[in-house]
């Protein structure tokens, strides 16, 4: 049995957890081009070595981050997401274009 230490629930069998993908900083949603979004959504570092990734303890729906070595499968550290996400992110919509752009949308 392979164990993973959940920051909330302690040591549990890894089968209780769901892998949630690599951790990537999100691009600026107001500025990012379509190409940058494609890279953020589809492309991965897929590193052979130490990576930071999302995991979820399925039974308690608790999401957290883990540092894991993808060659040796050693889990080096697990930590709550608020170590990285410690500031409020403002998801204000992109400002409406000025009225002179109106004709183009026809």
């Amino acid at each position, binding site marked *: 049995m392979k164990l993973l230490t959940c920051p909330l629930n302690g040591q549990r069998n890894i089968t209780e957890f769901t*892998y949630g993908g690599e951790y990537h900083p999100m691009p600026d949603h107001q500025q990012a081009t*379509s190409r940058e979004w*494609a*890279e953020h959504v*589809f*492309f*991965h570092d*897929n590193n*052979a070595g130490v990576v930071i990734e999302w995991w979820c303890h399925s039974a308690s729906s608790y999401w957290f981050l883990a540092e894991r070595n*993808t060659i040796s499968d050693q889990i080096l550290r697990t930590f709550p997401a608020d170590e990285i996400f410690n500031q409020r992110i403002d998801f204000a919509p992109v400002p409406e274009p000025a009225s002179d752009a109106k004709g183009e949308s026809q």
Partner: protein
Amino acid sequence: MPFGLLKYGLSSEYPGEHHFNPTTELKKHYDVVIIGAGGHGTGIAYHLAKYHGITNVAVLEKNYLGSGNTARNTAVIRSNYLTEEGVTFYRESVKLWQDLSNEFNYNVMMESRGQLTLAHSDAAIRSFRWRAEVNQHMGVRSELIDRQQIAEMVPNLNMSEDSRFPIMGGLWHADGATARHDAVAWGYAKGACERGVELHQLTEVQDIEVTSGRVTAVKTNRGRIECGCVVQAVAGASSVVAKMAGIPLPIHSYPLQAMVTQPYKPILTPHVSSPHLHVYTHQTSRGEFVIGGGSDPYPLYNTRATLDQRESLTAAALELFPFLAQARMLRQWAGTTDMTPDYSPIMGLSPVENYYLDAGWGTWGFKATPICGKTMAKLVATKKVPDIIKPFELERFYKYQQINEAGATAASH
């Protein structure tokens, strides 16, 4: 035989035929450097040499010939995919498979015993009907069959309605086949070496030199080689190698485990797969049952075997074929599957002008071997992307034009 063993065992003068060139020093320059000597890499070299007259080619392999996923896959050949692009591509591959032994005069033991995919839900029946229609339209033999037809085709299958997920119907694919996977790499490598291609085993690429958007050289553990162009065909290490050339890829690498039983009398004719139970099995020509399933639950560059996966594979296989409870397991192993977001490969041009990609082969690489050899060689020789692989370009992810084959895998991943 024992006498020959004594006579030649201690001598370097064995009169037998050498299939591949003996290791030589690396030259300073090759027109084409192919990274990876699996079925794909050697297939590309073979087609370059035989059909395009390009023989100043080096195939570099960090381990030994065919030691990666060519040796680790479960040798399933089929073309019953869902999209027009996918079906066209794999259909052409199956056609090439059927004549492959003649093509390079090496027996790949191709056996067209058909493939049966099982439905355990109404949703699966709907999706199979869709696939059957698409396949028939594209000239691929696929049809929806009912419980009685399944019971007649596979008498040992557990057709009980009291099982956890009773079988409701199936997708029968008469073109489904299997072949001896090692022989594919050996046959291609032999044909390529006979025509002047150099195979360099134990030669690991450690860096790729890119100057103003063009590859100029590759650095290996045996020295630096200048090259006209590079083709990467390294399933299981696609991201790692592409990164040396500065190319990001939309890939996550997961292990996929399989196992094999001791040999038994022939009792199972077709390949049987159940996406719902995440398992597929067939009996090899040697009599072993090969059992494979979905990828591991998280990415890893390691081919270790786990007890978790053995338990889930065994449980699913026993649900389909209860008699396997008596079978003894011989081996369990893993390969590394480079999974793309749309379950289709990444082939063709890359952001680096003379660097060609043959990547993202997830769980569908073996069946595509001959068509990859043919089309990638054509791309390298003519610098024009053949129409049949155009849809699989890396650029499709930036255009949001994925080719979704997630539903057409043999076991959901």
